């Protein structure tokens, strides 16, 4: 009987964990879509208030700057495509994700196309997964 309870709890734990990682993968994709479509409501949900968003030229945006620069037209994303996404570490409350990403954007009026390796650190809050830190490097 005790063995049955233990197995059931383990199974439940695995199911919850699988749901969590599925939710994280959705958040990773959803973030890219929201940046391109300028979905501010989604971005407000996906980006933690203490976010530091680092670009491949070492420029760092706060969450507020992500919104301001989007609204002012300083930085417009026209395409963000992950060619690979790896969940390198997933704990209950946080996770590390690495991706290879192709970005088309317009920065200060100049169009650019860039291939990046991106490191993302996500945390799980009551509202769901939120991006806390991000750093890209040019490939």
């Amino acid at each position, binding site marked *: 009987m005790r063995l049955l309870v233990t197995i059931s709890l383990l199974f439940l734990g695995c199911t919850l964990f699988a749901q969590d990682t599925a939710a994280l993968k959705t958040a990773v994709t959803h973030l890219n879509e929201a940046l391109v479509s300028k979905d501010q409501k989604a971005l407000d949900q996906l980006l933690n208030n203490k976010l530091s968003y*680092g670009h491949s*030229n070492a420029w760092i945006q706060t969450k507020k700057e992500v919104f301001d620069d989007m609204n002012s037209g300083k930085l417009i994303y026209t395409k963000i495509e992950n060619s690979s996404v790896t969940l390198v570490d997933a704990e209950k409350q*946080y996770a590390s994700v690495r991706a290879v990403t192709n970005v088309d954007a317009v920065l200060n009026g100049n169009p650019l196309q860039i291939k990046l390796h991106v490191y993302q650190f996500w945390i799980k809050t009551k509202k769901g997964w939120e991006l806390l830190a991000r750093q890209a*490097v040019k490939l």
Partner: protein
Amino acid sequence: MKSALIILSIFSSVVVFGQSKNVNFVMVLAASKNLQTTVFGTKDSATLEKLFAKKLTYGHSGGKVETREEAIHGIANNKSIYSDTSLKAYDIRFINKDVAVVRYEMRETETKAGAAPAPLNLGILLVWVKEKGQWKLTGRQAVKLAN
């Protein structure tokens, strides 16, 4: 008398909370400095074992990614000499008292084995988490600075 006790207990908890925030700041800054001087100075693997969390993803500025074991091995066997291991312009943010995000710059000269010294300027992102009361590194990403 009761109101005095209430005021005193609120004051004490504010002071204690404030102190624990300061303690965490000091600990994370110390750990970050220790990491920096170890990676670019002593290259001592025993120290790295203590600083690294159970799971670590360690990213270099060219896009190379190492696991915990690969990073320790790579650092310990790195033949380069580095001129200046200090942290510059650092920023530390805390989430939930058990996650800390650190960013800083390092600007130094790297002398690779058999090569002339060359400038090495990097922006570093460190993610620290608390494991059993100790701050441990779970994520690292470097990016090249312009100059």
